[in-house]
């Protein structure tokens, strides 16, 4: 009797058994929790006479979406395009604003980060003030500021503010830019550019080999840059400049309704997109600047000293010693910020820029009412971005890990 009891107790206190029991309990309670939620949801849905399904995606969407990349890509038409089209338009517009935002934010962020490290007091002070201001004010406030306080106080459709007279102008309808329409023969210039890329690639390889063999350094960077710009330019000019630039046209006289920037002439960026792009870029740039600064400061001062003592000049020191080490520290949080920027683009719903959340959870949800399916579809897009970013970061970290004992 006693030995049986102590055997049971022995199993009970064994760490492995305990851990298995605990895990089983955990999984069971999770399953029970899920079942309870699903049960409630089913009950609630049937009480509201709703059903679950994705068939609504083939219904036609009956609302207008402002002209953006997405509508252009998918040829959106009210009354014929479906909710599935709306979904893809949202994704396309999110991509657009995230992509532009990332580029702008990176350029600004690196600039301000390096400025912050400068010996020059004015540059340092300016970037510090910028960073502290943009970091401590919520993104939504900045978005509203740009949209309501700045862009909305521009002149109305009959007026304009010239940024570059006759070339770039802005009013409440949007930012008008010249558009470039390629003519026949433009493909020659594109081919020239492609050829330049290939030549530059092989030139770099040849220059590296030459340096290894003879020690002489070839200015591959400058030559390559000259080639990438120069060759297509020469071909372009020689082939008769086959590019028509359509400048925005502004009519100042005539019947009132026909005054203002002419529709269809030149390219227009709607203020919603401008506001989202600007505020996302400026906000994220502040965080990127701090990441860049921390990355460069993380490289031990002794590295610079040793390089100087060996006789290396500042440029090679940056290129060969500092930047490779700084990049290890900068890239992981930098990709996090890129992900944050993409997620933050969802704030556009507040000013009705038709990115994913705005167009799907805003307008479409009101019309269709299939909350669970639609929110699930939205979240999966962002989760995919997240997972891809995570995979990239893990790969990057594993690849650049410093080899230690």
């Amino acid at each position, binding site marked *: 009797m006693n030995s049986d009891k102590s055997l049971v107790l022995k199993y009970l206190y064994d760490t492995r058994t305990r*851990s298995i029991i*605990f*895990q089983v309990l*955990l*999984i069971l309670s*999770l399953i029970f929790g899920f079942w309870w*939620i699903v049960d*409630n*949801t089913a*009950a*609630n*849905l049937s*009480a509201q006479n709703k059903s679950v399904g994705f068939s609504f995606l083939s219904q036609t969407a009956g609302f207008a979406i402002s002209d953006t990349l997405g509508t252009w890509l998918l040829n959106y038409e009210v009354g014929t395009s479906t909710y599935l089209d709306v979904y893809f338009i949202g994704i396309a517009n999110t991509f657009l604003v995230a992509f532009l935002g990332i580029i702008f934010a990176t350029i600004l962020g690196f600039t301000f980060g390096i400025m912050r490290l*400068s*010996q*020059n*007091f*004015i*540059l340092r*002070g*300016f970037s510090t*003030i910028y960073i*502290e*201001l943009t*970091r*401590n*004010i*919520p*993104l*939504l*406030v*900045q978005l*509203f*500021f740009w949209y*309501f*306080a700045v862009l*909305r*106080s521009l002149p109305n459709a009959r007026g304009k503010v010239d940024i570059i007279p006759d070339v770039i102008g802005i009013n409440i309808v949007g930012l008008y830019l010249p558009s470039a329409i390629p003519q026949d023969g433009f493909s020659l210039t594109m081919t020239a550019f492609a050829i330049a890329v290939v030549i530059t690639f092989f030139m770099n390889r040849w220059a590296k080999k030459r340096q290894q063999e003879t020690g002489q350094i070839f200015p591959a960077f400058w030559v390559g840059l000259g080639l990438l710009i120069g060759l297509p330019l020469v071909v372009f000019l020689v082939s008769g400049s086959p590019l028509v630039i359509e400048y925005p046209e502004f009519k100042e006289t005539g019947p009132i309704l026909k005054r203002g920037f002419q529709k269809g002439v030149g390219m227009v960026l709607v203020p919603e997109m401008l506001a989202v792009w600007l505020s996302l870029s400026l906000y994220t740039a502040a965080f990127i600047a701090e990441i860049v600064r921390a990355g460069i400061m993380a490289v031990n001062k002794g590295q610079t000293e040793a390089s100087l003592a060996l006789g290396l000049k500042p440029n090679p020191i940056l290129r060969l010693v500092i930047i490779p080490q700084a990049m290890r520290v900068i890239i992981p949080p930098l990709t996090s910020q890129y992900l944050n920027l993409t*997620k*933050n683009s*969802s*704030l556009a*719903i*507040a000013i009705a820029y038709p990115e994913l*959340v705005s167009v799907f*959870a805003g307008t479409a*949800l009101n019309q269709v009412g299939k*909350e*669970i399916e639609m*929110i699930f579809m*939205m*979240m999966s897009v*962002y*989760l995919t*971005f*997240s*997972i891809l970013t*995570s995979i990239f970061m893990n790969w990057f970290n594993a690849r650049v890990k410093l080899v230690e004992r």
Partner: protein
Amino acid sequence: MAKKTTSSSIAYVRTEPAPLLPPPASQTGLLGWLHKNILASMTDFSSPVAAVKSLLMAFFTVLIGYVGVTQIISLVDFAFISAVWSDPEGLKREACWTVDQGGSLPSGWHGACWPFVKAKFKFLMYGPYDMDQLWRVNVTGIIGLVALAWLLIEPLPLRRYVGIFLLTVYPVLSIILLYGRLDPSSTTLSVITLGGILPPTPTTLMGIVVVGLGLMTLARLGSRGMLSRTIEDHARQIEMSGWVVIAYALIFALFTDGYNLERIDTNDWGGLMITLVVAITGIVASLPLGILLALGRRSTMPAARIICTVFIEFWRGVPLITVLFMASVMLPLFLPEGVNFDNLLRALVGVMLFSAAYMAEVVRGGLQAIDKGQFEGSSAVGLTYWQSMRLVILPQALTHVIPGIVNTFIGLFKDTTLVSIIGLFDLLGAGQSALADAAWASPVQSHSMYLFIAAIFFVFCFGMSRYSIYMENKLSRSRRH
């Protein structure tokens, strides 16, 4: 190369000390500072490349200096110098109009319209909360502030008890003050009152509190040997039961009738009050969940690890706005029919889950930073997993991550602006609502309001980030042994 002319011996002894001189004028003082901080980068002409760089630097310095200074001047001018500060005649919007628009300010005037902000100030702070009952919000705020200050300022005594107060009594107190008594369903009521034995009045509440405190004092005295042996032996159990009674008292307090406090629905809450409620509740509620998730993610048990990792990565991978949508739209579907969650509570649940995931990563960072020897040492002296966590590991980890927690809080504080998108009136929402008031419409209306709101957020966030840096420096100094 010079050659030595004499072959004197190497030996040398200094007979007089070298004079201790001040540095040359160009190195220190204003001139030195100017040189080092501005001119040095612009005056290097040793090679053509360096000369070009110097000129570019000079150009950029002048350009950015100019831009910076003009922007700062125009901001100061807008906010202070040219601003309209008062509206004695009650003209409202006309007080901020130029002559061209029909007002009295000179043409081309551009300044802030502070009477507008002043008129809307109460609304911005409290939202549509009942004007007579504002004292309730103020009292809650003041108690919270005093307790927080007490907790943070180093030398003050009894900080542990203030901490416990803040985490247990204060939330119940705030709910009662801000909202009023909760309405129990009949089942809840019968459970709370123990089947009708204890009527839900303030007197009963007092009684329960007294019993609880009494038990704890008994345990304290008992463990010091001042009372009978039996009490001393069971001191721990007595203290435990004391805690249970106090917890019961707290729940009882929520349903007690008789405070004479009018119910104020959360739909009538708004402004800065909502911002603070959402942010603070979010952070405080997410901390325990975040710690559990962090421990789970580091666990050796695969089930726990996978579940926690999936949970964390899910909430961190989606934007907060989708979480808020999910909470406000889907939460009612997930709960049994009839259970009605009010709007604010749904947002709080969403914020709490979202923030718990970020908190988990912060705590995990802190746990990783702890030397493995701590885990080994505590298990070597015989502590169980939970004991070593509670007594050794977590106290150290949490001090490591205080800066991280403050940073998460700052982020959450800024993110609370998103609740305005799902219909809750936070500071930003209140500001936008105020802007819709045509009685104050003027060209500078939106600039003034956004400037004011931005300034409030800036002061809060900047202050908190300074505190976080201060804590970081303090902690790294003490750790450098």
